[in-house]
């Protein structure tokens, strides 16, 4: 190609001819030449008419090259460019998505204002195209149109809004890019798409990831609270919040609640957590820009404790190209000032190699200096010593500066450094000496008295050293500390006076300075010299120097005219000057978003979006709620749990109805919000009603029962006078209880396994006097109904999530009080199946309890495993939590030898494996129970689930409420124990009960669903008490819920396990808020 290039540029006629010919090969040849001209920056615009004719050429390469030409020159030849438009418009209608996309791409790249309406239309159409690729192209076209005509902004924002809702990864990156270019301030458009973007992120192409992560960083800064706000800050905020809310609304209760809510320890918004969690894997990306984007996200958003993870990845980038190193080191330098600890383990990665480019060396030096502390300073200084001998003098100078900084920052090594630097004064390289002088000057200012020797030594250097900055520094030093070197100072001035005219400006200024200071301290010797210097300076070329001379003369030489200042001259000149603080140039750079161009330049670049400060109060998190696809369900649920303070200071409406229904709804595509949510709630509503009817019928009788029990129980308990009657924690299959027939039976038999359970639960049904013998028809009905309902609304789950498995039905625990007929049937069904191991019977019961997924069908290659906490004591080991595991084989082959393998419990944790399942036929389901001693922590238990062919890593994480077993005690006992657990062990929280949760039984039911606790009778009608013991250590957990007027309530938890207490509070509040 290069051969004929020189021929081309002066004659284009031959090209025109070739373009006009019929042969594609000639056209192609011509186009190639033309493109080569464009590439070399030669003007080929006069060929426009000839080229544009070929826009409809059949040859695909000719066509492409014509596009290249067109995009390049259309702007200059707008009228002619219009000729090509119709071709593209035709292309927009092509059945092939790729042709549609390419037509849109070229059309939008032609920067001709006349076609703006056409482009707008094309973009709008393409935005709703079937093909995600075309939609992506539409997203790309948006900023093009915007740059051509910014008046279209409003319309474009509409398109962006539409595309943001797109669920494909292909579009996500491009549309966020468009968002950033067109309307970065419209953060409200992101709310609804936030979770989706977080979840899609990992699958988006790498460039899109960068853009999305940067945008989400900004978003998170506006929507979440700072994870690092400390106590003191919090208190301040509390004040503010208090007054703020009082002004608005004088209700004391509310304000109080607001304060209380504010006082709560910081709880991270689950959406905030979602972002952090979903970006973390991207630290492993091969793309440096992605890694950097995640790093800055963590730096700006993560709690201090978690930021550390990014260090490793950033250090990895240091292996990359030097340009990448340059940018990464800049950012590391900024980070290392704020979070030094983060990079300390990687100190050695910043050691400098002689082959590094100078700019990299200097940045590494910066980082090393930032990382220096008392412990590692000796290693670092040893490194620095080798650097000083480098051939690269700029680098040596920087090293000396760095030593100076280390010396000022770390007092311990100041003298060592100073000595080292003084030695450098005899270095042969003048630059080194000069730099040392400058640094020594700064160091000496800190403790001048002890170092007159050094000052003398430096005074001698004035003879040799020529670097102006160094000379000026020496002169300043001598002037400043002339009292320490009274003999030398006048002599230096004498020498300098001699050479004054030949000095650089900064040196001259310092000579004047020195003269003035000497005049003030030692006028006898230096009066004449000073006069002489000032006279010289008076006629200097530089006006600064002339000014200075004039000013100083007036100030120091007493004349009749001189004013009051004269007296203070000495004070003015020889005032104690604070030692300079040697600071990193990277300090405070972090107000720019890390990884941005602005941060790199330390100046605001065009189009830079400020990183906003954290808000004092989190904006309403419910704005991010969307009609929920499966995967967000849990997060939104969590969110409510953790964000319970919300209703207190925003009004509770925001949190109630709509959110609820939106959350609980199954995926409903692009359906409109309102209609879909109403349909969702109505469907779940009917179910609820049914449920309630049934319950109501059973309830009345049960309530009575309960009351009786309540009265009976405590008496017996009192007799025993101990809280050994721990039910469920078979830890005390105790002796005293032998007289308690029913309780005893339940307790003893439950641990014995399935048979026992049958008995207990059949007992349960009889004792409850509810229809244990309800017909199988209703049972089947229940089965059919339950699974969808549990899916449809999490609330339903908890509704059903009674203590179905509570082994002692006689106990006045709430579960029995509200158990419904249908539930009893379920219960029975379960127990039956449990003994007979008929999996089909099992399923309804299981879906009624909160089941958790252990292994998804997809991940398990057809093997699906779910688990639930059966709330039964685990036979054999009272310290273990029984976990019921349901394994279904969805493959078409038999699964053999299913077993737990290699449990890798954390320290102290123990796992009792379930007996190996020899074989599981296709389509079959098996249920087994395994025991896990979680050591009273919510840490997940990890183990392998093995089949004869595969093994899966799985983990079980218990909700805190499952780590305990109910205890039954009297009111008095309760109060006594509560008295022992005051102070630190007590956690109190205020909450508002939602309307649905006003009745006694719902409260009790919600609470017992959240935690495996037993109810303690209580005299007061507005109080509810519950007690439990943690399974492993047997620590008491006492729960009191006191209802206040209105819908407020106070929840108190007493437990010596404070962590469990805090977590339990959260869980309960969440359960009650539902």
């Amino acid at each position, binding site marked *: *190609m*290069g051969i004929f290039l020189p021929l081309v540029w002066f004659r284009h006629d031959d090209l025109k001819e070739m373009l006009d010919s019929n042969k594609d090969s000639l056209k*192609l040849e011509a186009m190639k030449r033309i493109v*080569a001209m464009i*590439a*070399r*920056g030669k003007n080929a615009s006069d060929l426009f008419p000839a080229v544009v004719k070929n826009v409809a050429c059949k*040859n*695909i*390469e000719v066509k*492409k090259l014509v*596009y290249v030409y067109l995009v*390049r020159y259309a*702007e200059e030849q707008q009228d002619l460019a219009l000729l090509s438009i119709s071709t593209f418009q035709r292309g927009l209608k092509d059945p*092939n*998505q790729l*042709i549609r996309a390419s037509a849109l791409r070229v059309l939008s*790249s032609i*920067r001709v204002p006349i076609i703006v309406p056409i482009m707008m239309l094309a973009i709008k159409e393409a935005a709703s195209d079937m093909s*995600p*690729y075309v939609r992506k*192209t539409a997203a*790309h*076209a948006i900023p*093009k149109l915007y740059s051509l005509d910014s008046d279209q902004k409003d319309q474009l924002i509409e398109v962006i809004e539409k595309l943001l809702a797109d669920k494909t990864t*292909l579009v996500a990156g491009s549309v966020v*890019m468009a968002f950033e270019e067109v309307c970065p301030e419209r953060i409200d458009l992101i709310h609804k798409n936030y979770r989706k973007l977080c979840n899609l992120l990992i699958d988006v192409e790498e*460039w899109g990831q*960068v853009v999305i992560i*940067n945008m989400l960083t900004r978003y998170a800064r506006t929507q979440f609270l700072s994870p690092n706000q400390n106590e003191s800050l919090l208190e301040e905020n509390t004040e503010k919040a208090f007054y703020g809310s009082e002004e608005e609304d004088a209700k004391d209760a509310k304000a109080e609640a607001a304060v209380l809510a504010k006082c709560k320890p910081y709880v991270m918004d689950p959406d905030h957590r979602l972002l952090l969690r979903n970006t973390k894997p991207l630290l492993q*990306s*091969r793309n440096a820009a992605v890694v*950097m*984007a995640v790093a800055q996200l963590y730096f700006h958003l993560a709690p201090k404790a978690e930021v550390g993870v990014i260090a*490793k*990845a950033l250090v*990895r980038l240091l292996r990359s*190209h030097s*340009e*990448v190193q*340059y940018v990464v080191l800049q950012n590391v330098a900024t980070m290392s000032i704020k979070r030094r600890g983060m990079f300390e383990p990687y100190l050695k*990665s910043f*050691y400098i190699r*002689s*082959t590094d*480019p*100078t700019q990299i060396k200097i940045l590494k030096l910066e980082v090393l200096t930032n990382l220096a502390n008392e412990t590692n300073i000796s290693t670092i200084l040893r*490194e620095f010593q*080798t650097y000083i*001998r*480098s051939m690269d003098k700029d680098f040596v100078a920087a090293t000396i500066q760095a030593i100076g900084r280390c010396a000022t920052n770390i007092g311990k090594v100041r003298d060592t450094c100073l000595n080292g630097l003084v030695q450098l004064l005899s270095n*042969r*390289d003048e630059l080194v000496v000069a730099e040392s002088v400058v640094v020594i000057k700064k160091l000496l200012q800190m403790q001048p008295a002890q170092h007159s020797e050094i000052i003398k030594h430096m005074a001698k250097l004035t003879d040799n050293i020529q670097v102006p900055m160094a000379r000026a520094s020496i002169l300043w030093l001598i002037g400043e500390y002339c009292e320490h070197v009274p003999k030398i100072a006048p002599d230096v001035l004498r020498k300098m006076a001699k050479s004054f005219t030949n000095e650089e400006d900064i040196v001259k200024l310092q000579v004047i300075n020195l003269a003035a200071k000497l005049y003030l301290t030692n006028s006898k010797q230096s009066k004449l010299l000073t006069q002489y210097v000032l006279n010289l300076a008076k006629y200097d070329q530089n006006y600064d120097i002339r000014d200075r001379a004039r000013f100083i003369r007036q100030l120091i030489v007493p004349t009749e005219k001189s004013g009051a200042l004269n007296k203070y001259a000495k004070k003015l000149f020889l005032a104690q000057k604070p030692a300079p603080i040697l600071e990193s140039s990277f300090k405070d750079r972090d107000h720019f978003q890390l*990884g*941005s*161009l602005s941060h*790199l*330049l330390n*100046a605001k*670049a065009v189009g830079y979006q400020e990183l906003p400060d954290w808000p004092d109060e989190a904006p309403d998190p419910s704005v991010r709620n969307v009609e929920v696809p499966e995967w967000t369900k849990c997060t939104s649920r969590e969110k409510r749990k953790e964000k319970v303070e919300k209703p207190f200071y925003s009004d509770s409406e925001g949190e109630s109805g709509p959110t609820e229904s939106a959350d609980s709804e199954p995926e409903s595509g692009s359906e409109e919000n309102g209609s879909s949510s109403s349909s969702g709630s109505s469907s779940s509503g009917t179910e609820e009603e049914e449920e309630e009817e049934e319950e109501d019928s059973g309830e009345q009788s049960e309530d009575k029962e309960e009351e009786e029990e309540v009265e009976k129980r405590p008496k017996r308990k009192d007799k025993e006078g101990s809280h050994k009657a721990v039910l469920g924690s078979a830890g005390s299959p105790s002796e005293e209880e032998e007289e308690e027939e029913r309780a005893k039976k339940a307790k003893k038999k439950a641990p014995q396994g399935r048979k026992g359970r049958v008995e207990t639960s059949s007992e349960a049904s009889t004792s409850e006097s509810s229809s244990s013998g309800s017909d199988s028809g209703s049972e089947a009905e229940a089965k059919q109904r339950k699974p969808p309902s549990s899916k449809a609304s999490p609330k339903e789950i908890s509704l059903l999530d009674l203590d179905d498995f509570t082994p002692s039905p006689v106990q006045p625990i709430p579960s029995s009080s509200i158990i419904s007929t249908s539930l009893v049937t379920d219960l029975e069904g379960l127990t039956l199946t449990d003994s007979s191991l008929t999996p089909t019977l099992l399923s309804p019961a299981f879906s009624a309890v909160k089941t958790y997924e252990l292994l998804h069908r997809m991940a398990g290659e057809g093997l699906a495993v779910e688990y639930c906490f059966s709330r039964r004591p685990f036979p054999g080991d009272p310290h273990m939590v029984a976990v019921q595991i349901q394994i279904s084989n969805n493959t078409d082959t038999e699964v053999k030898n299913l077993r737990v393998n290699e449990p890798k419990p954390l320290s102290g944790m123990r796992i009792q494996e379930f007996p190996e399942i020899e074989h599981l036929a296709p389509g079959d389901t098996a249920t087994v129970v395994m025991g896990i001693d979680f050591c009273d922590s919510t840490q997940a238990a990890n183990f392998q689930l093995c089949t004869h062919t595969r093994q899966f890593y799985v983990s079980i994480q218990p909700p805190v409420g499952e780590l305990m077993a109910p205890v039954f005690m009297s009111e008095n006992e309760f109060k006594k124990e509560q008295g022992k657990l005051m102070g630190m062990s007590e956690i109190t929280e205020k909450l508002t009960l939602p309307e649905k949760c006003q009745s006694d039984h719902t409260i009790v039911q919600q609470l017992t669903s959240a935690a495996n606790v037993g109810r303690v009778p209580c005299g007061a009608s507005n109080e509810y008490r519950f007690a439990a013991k943690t399974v492993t250590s047997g620590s008491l957990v006492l729960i009191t819920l006191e209802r206040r007027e209105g819908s407020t309530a106070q929840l108190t938890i007493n437990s010596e396990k404070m962590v469990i207490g805090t977590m339990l509070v959260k869980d309960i509040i969440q359960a009650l808020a539902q």
Partner: protein
Amino acid sequence: MIHSLFLINAAGDIFLEKHWKSVVSRSVCDYFFEAQERASEAENVPPVIPTPHHYLLSVYRHKIFFVAVIQSEVPPLFVIEFLHRVVDTFQDYFGVCSEVIIKDNVVVVYEVLEEMLDNGFPLATESNILKELIKPPTILRTVVNTITGSTNVGDQLPTGQLSVVPWRRTGVKYTNNEAYFDVIEEIDAIIDKSGSTITAEIQGVIDACVKLTGMPDLTLSFMNPRLLDDVSFHPCVRFKRWESERILSFIPPDGNFRLLSYHVSAQNLVAIPVYVKHNISFRDSSSLGRFEITVGPKQTMGKTIEGVMVTSQMPKSVLNMTLTPSQGTHVFDPVTKLLSWDVGKINPQKLPSLKGSVSLQAGTSKPDENPTINLQFKIQQLAISGLKVNRLDMYGEKYKPFKGIKYMTKAGKFQVRT
């Protein structure tokens, strides 16, 4: 995003320009030339140069500056990473990336650049997709094209962009199905004067050459995956599987690609396979200095060290060196003061050495710095960290592929301070 791209050669000529938005005058490069002049060496040109209206971001590779012009805030690494990707693509297309090659293939280059960015935002950067769009030139194809007048531009449409595995071409067919993996480890080390290790770490990569028909799904497992401390993956690797099982599971791109790069955890002591004995001294009185280097094997696990190359930057005051190597060849460039000694294989029985004298500029005092010695070497069939691939399995396709794994250890940035 990226407005324009200028390619500038070492002589300071702009030999290619490409604009993705409106045209930016090439005079903007004057700012770049200024910065280039200020920096003594090419690699010291700052990668980011602000100008009154634009920002210039550049990378320097293969003696070419790739200068991107941007107009507004964009993460600098975004641009830099992209420019490197451009260079990689050129290399992938033409084998080498040099001024001559780019000039010769200017049309292909232009077409590729056109596809890589749309309005300055990266569009298709996967080499597999690009090759589907624009076929890389081969000698055969060039000949055929000139005779038949057919083109380099693929007449298929870039379906790869639509696929869920955008990195893999569709409809791949091979008669010999093979998958090769090279485990290459590099030792980065700084050894101090006395021979003790200041810092040493192992960085490794697994480069793959996969030529398999259809849509194979591969899993690669290691005997000792715990060795890997920090990893970064090709986008094809399923991160979840790695997290949970420490298995690399992926649908590979077609052809050559880097599957994984890793860092071996710092707790493991790094075996340093070579040692360097050196005696370099300059005397103050005479203008002569002594120079002696011996290279020997240390912990090589019984493997031979090959491709040994010693380079050292001598101080400026060194005029010339008179050296005799016991093996290999040496060159001293009196202009750049760079000494390089191509040693070759190390024979443990007869250690290679380089001895002789250094003549210094008369009248100058002895240089106070000692040159650092940079070392390069290769050890075949050894991954110095001990990493071992356990097995490679293929799912999704019926045929039996031919599999191969090669290990190699190399010196990365291996420096000996003297």
